[in-house]
């Protein structure tokens, strides 16, 4: 593939995202003007805060793309860092876990991204599930505190799996060698992010417009069947419509998008359950209108490894 068509494809994807955001900003301003009459309005103000945060997020991703592989790895390294910080902050740990948590932050996290950087698939795919899994409880055991031991170690391991291992599968998409698609792997990341986040946004829109019946009232009061079905169907259609930017045929793009959307939805449910257990609504306060880093990423976390392995199984010889 020649680079100019790749650059043009990337430009079209970002142009499309910017176009959607211009529309969203216009609608937000219109709602603020006509419905809220400029007065404070919880739902509309939150919508506008979300749209503004989206502008920043798209700009940040665009900047990372401009720096290529290094930029993307640094970006997701930082995302993992903030996500892990949010996760550990809310988890119940004791003084005896200090070394395990320090190892997670200062050894597990950088090493995982280094392995992705040098494209050592054989190690980065098992480093956290095998080695970190075994070493962390050893470090916690040295703390000498047995109170709620299994629960505490499980939390640190979960934090690493969710925030580092799973998220690192987004930049790991760059390490796949798909015949006929060389040098264009950033588009796979764009496809994943657009479909997952598109699914979240469309579920939100469908839910706000038509939502009646709740899917899981005790987990997440804002998720409805109408939002789920409408959002996943339209995001699948969106994914299919993006087939020209991917190595997929349209029907393959639709199936991939469907798998991504469903995993993303389940990811949101699981992460909500963890939050409910701790009695909080959001993971943090980092992204205005959205909550924390993990609130925005819960669906990416569950979708990324599945997308990665589906691609690797069927498209990498």
């Amino acid at each position, binding site marked *: 593939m020649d680079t100019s068509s790749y650059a043009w494809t990337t430009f079209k994807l970002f142009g499309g995202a910017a176009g959607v955001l211009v529309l969203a900003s216009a609608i937000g301003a219109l709602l603020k003007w006509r419905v809220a009459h400029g007065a404070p309005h919880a739902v509309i103000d939150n919508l506008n805060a979300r749209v503004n945060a989206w502008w920043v997020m798209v700009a940040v991703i665009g900047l990372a793309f401009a720096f290529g592989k290094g930029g993307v790895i640094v970006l997701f390294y930082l995302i993992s*860092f*903030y996500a*892990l*910080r*949010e996760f*550990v*902050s*809310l988890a*119940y*740990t004791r*003084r005896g876990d*200090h*070394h395990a*948590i*320090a190892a997670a*932050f*200062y050894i597990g996290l950088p090493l995982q991204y280094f392995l992705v950087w040098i494209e050592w698939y054989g190690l980065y795919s098992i480093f956290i599930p095998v080695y970190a899994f075994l070493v962390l409880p050893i470090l916690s055991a040295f703390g000498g505190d047995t109170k709620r031991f299994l629960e505490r170690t499980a939390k640190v391991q979960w934090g690493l799996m969710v925030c580092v291992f799973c998220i690192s599968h987004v930049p790991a998409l760059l390490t796949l060698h798909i015949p006929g698609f060389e040098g264009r792997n950033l588009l796979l990341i764009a496809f994943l992010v657009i479909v997952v986040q598109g699914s979240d946004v469309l579920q939100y829109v469908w839910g706000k417009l038509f939502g009646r019946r709740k899917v899981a009232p005790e987990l997440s009061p804002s998720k409805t069947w109408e939002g789920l079905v409408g959002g996943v169907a339209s995001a699948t259609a969106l994914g299919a419509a993006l087939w020209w930017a991917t190595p997929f045929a349209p029907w393959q793009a639709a199936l991939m998008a469907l798998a991504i959307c469903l995993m993303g939805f389940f990811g949101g449910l699981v992460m909500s359950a963890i939050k409910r257990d*701790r*009695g*909080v609504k959001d993971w*943090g*306060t*980092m992204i205005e209108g959205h909550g924390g880093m993990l609130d925005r990423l819960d669906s990416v976390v569950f979708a990324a490894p599945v997308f990665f392995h589906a691609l690797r199984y069927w498209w990498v010889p």
Partner: protein
Amino acid sequence: MKDQLANEAPAPRVLAQRALAFATARLIVGAARLLTGVRAVWAGSGPKAEQTLYFANRSSHGDFVLLWATLPPDLRALTRPVAGQDYWLASTARRFIGESVFNALMIRRDGSGGGPNPVDQMTEALHAGDSLIMFPEGTRNTTDEILLPLKSGLYHLARACPQVRFVPVWIENLKRVLPKGTLVPIPLACAVRYGAPIALQEGEDKTAFLDRARQAMLDLRPEYDRQED
């Protein structure tokens, strides 16, 4: 000896020291922000340019840094942490940070004879117009206890300085960032929660006031922290 030399040193050296103090303050606040993403939650009162005594829970040497970092910059200049001199005067670097960077009020914590009484020192500073950050538990809380009983100093200060706002503060999570006996801080999201000011009421005795102050601090804890009581 050292202080005498510093006083007689030419102006450029004093300027350089001030610049270094300023840069160090920025560096410390920046590092604290990066590690903890600290944010201020003004639950009961907004930040006000009025003379204030902030009293907070104490679990590590970084407590006042975090509290200080969440104050608006113009209030920082007026606000002095109260710090134990046995720790902060123990080395040149600590002395520089304690005295030049944070302008701390150094007190004796061990309570042994000799030297001025800490409560008198704090009263004097408040009468001179400073705002203070103090930790009424008296010592670092390294136990599993959520908050130690408060020392009586807070009560004596409230009686001596009725014109000062007494603002309860809860520093959340910091204890887990750097527990006692560890060297490497771990990154955790921390918050500094400021409550509504409390004042000594007519005829209120020491125990009642200290209980009320302690409860005001505990009430600032977030929901998910209270479950583990």
